């Protein structure tokens, strides 16, 4: 058994999440470095006044930052927990850490420096939101955290010259767009893979039916044809089922047209009774939908007529020809033929004569119907339809 393993519906953004955790690791290292440098600083330099009002608490906060980064990094990279609550928690922690600057650091220092968890580390929250909720949420988070950070530092007047806002906005929007694109691509790929699998399965079923049931039905029909009575009837029924199954399979295999055309041959073969001999070219013949529908209807009308009037044992033949600039359908029977004058009589009586109906319907689709009949040659209708500008012909 052939087995194809395709990861459909897998999380397409997972590679992004993993990449983001590498960045998180680097940003944690930077945050620790910044803490080590700043915690013993003095404002102004050489004044002996420490920059931090609560250095111990600031260390605890940095420890929280490190632990949280480790936990969230693992959770995101290995999908250990659902992401939405993690991302919300991350946002809350980030906001609190930015705000904590005002508590642990003296205003003289933080007014001119970065907030405690630096811009660099704050970016992680923006990345997570963008990957999870897309470009708009990502952009809004980026701008929001940037403004909060500037507000804490009382640097609002620098919002235009400070790089924080544009950087965080860009990160949020671009990563959000990237995540959306790969997610959509993944969905489309999954849909395509599913459709392909369904088509494969249909083809396999068609082969199975062809190799099994159809062969048996064909055999029953063949053997039944040589017998009498009930056996012959069974054979005939088997033949009808064989034809119905074949039709079903061929219809199923036909792909819907991408334009407004339909394949004439398969449509025609689908409606032909089992005892009508069909011949035609190997290549498909595409005509406008309306034209195919009308042509098939006309052929069915003629065949009904054959069944009614051609006499017992009359056989019917359908020939389909593609002449390039026109398509010709010939419906012939080897029955008794229509005696001279009969068609005219029918028309004279004002009835909806066969001839009138068939000719009129062919004229409607821009074609014509030619009749050849006689007592010893049966009846032969030749239906001609123009090719190419057929739709224009159907309209005039």
């Amino acid at each position, binding site marked *: 058994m052939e087995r194809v393993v395709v990861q459909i519906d897998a999380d397409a953004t997972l590679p992004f999440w993993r990449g983001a955790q590498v960045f998180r690791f680097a940003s944690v290292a930077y945050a620790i470095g910044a803490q080590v440098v700043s915690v013993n600083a003095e404002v102004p330099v050489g004044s002996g006044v420490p920059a931090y009002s609560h250095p111990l608490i600031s260390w605890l906060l940095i420890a929280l930052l490190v632990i949280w980064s480790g936990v969230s990094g693992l959770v995101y990279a290995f999908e250990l927990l659902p992401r939405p609550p993690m991302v919300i928690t991350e946002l809350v922690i980030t906001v609190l850490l930015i705000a904590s600057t005002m508590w642990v650091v003296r205003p003289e220092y933080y007014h001119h420096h970065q907030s405690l968890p630096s811009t660099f580390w704050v970016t992680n929250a923006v990345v997570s939101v963008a990957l999870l909720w897309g470009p708009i949420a990502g952009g809004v988070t980026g701008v929001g955290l940037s403004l909060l950070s500037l507000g804490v530092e009382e640097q609002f007047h620098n919002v235009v010259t400070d790089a924080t806002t544009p950087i965080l906005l860009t990160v949020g929007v671009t990563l959000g767009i990237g995540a959306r694109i790969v997610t959509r691509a993944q969905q489309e790929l999954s849909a395509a893979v599913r459709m392909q699998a369904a088509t494969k399965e249909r083809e396999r079923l068609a082969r199975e039916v062809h190799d099994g049931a159809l062969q048996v039905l064909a055999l029953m029909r063949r053997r039944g*044809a040589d017998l009498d009575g009930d056996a012959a009837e069974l054979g005939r029924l088997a033949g009808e089922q064989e034809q119905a199954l074949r039709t079903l399979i061929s219809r199923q295999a036909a792909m819907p047209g991408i334009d407004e055309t339909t394949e004439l041959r398969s449509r025609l073969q689908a409606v032909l009774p*089992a005892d009508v001999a069909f011949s035609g070219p190997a290549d498909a013949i595409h005509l406008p939908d309306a034209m195919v529908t009308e042509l098939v209807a006309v052929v069915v009308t003629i065949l009904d007529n054959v069944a009614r009037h051609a006499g017992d044992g009359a056989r019917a033949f359908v020939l389909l020809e593609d002449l390039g600039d026109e398509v010709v359908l010939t419906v012939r029977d080897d029955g008794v033929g229509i005696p001279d004058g009969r068609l005219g009589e029918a028309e004279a009586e004002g009835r909806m004569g066969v001839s009138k109906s068939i000719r009129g319907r062919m004229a409607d689709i821009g074609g014509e119907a030619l009749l050849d009949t006689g007592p010893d040659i049966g009846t032969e209708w030749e239906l001609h339809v123009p090719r190419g500008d057929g739709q224009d012909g159907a309209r005039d």
Partner: protein
Amino acid sequence: MGPVTDDATTIMVVDDHPMWRDGVSRDLESAGFQVVATADSVAAAATRAQATQPQVVLMDMQLPDGNGADATARVLEVAPQANVLVLSASSERDDVLQAVKAGACGYLVKSASATELLDAVNATAQGQAVFTPGLAGLVLGEYRRMASEPTPVGAEPTPSLTPRELEVLRLVAKGLSAKQIGRRLDVSHRTVENHVQATLRKLQLSNRIELTRYAIEHELD
């Protein structure tokens, strides 16, 4: 239905469906033919055709290791005097055309009656083309397709039908028998059959030329 004699026509039945294969073989044997081999794949058909050199090969179109066209070509390679009669379901039209171009000389639908099958096998054994309306329609379509395609510069001209051959082929495709066609065109039914054979031979010849040219161009000798 005569008994099997020494000069009975030898037949190989190629079909992967055992029930069909046995049923047809039984019918053929009770009608006096000698089924010398059966095969259920392209590979088996080639091996057994070489070993038994049957006069007639009944060929299914769908085989587990290839299609009937491949099988026809392989069989005729090792048993050139064999006459291949394709038995097919109507849905495999393109394959049937390929098999005919590969050298099969007849085509019958699987739903044909036992009598039709025996008649077809008899005709095939005598080297006559078994031209159902369906096959005539395919051949007609193929000539028209070839005519509509431009011939590459310097290539052999594609074969075409004479007006009379076209007329005959159309009538066959419309279901007329050779006798009926002869009456209509005021010629003997033999003449009609010769026209039909000619259309098939030209098609097979052009296919061989095409294959040879392909082989030379791609140095596949």
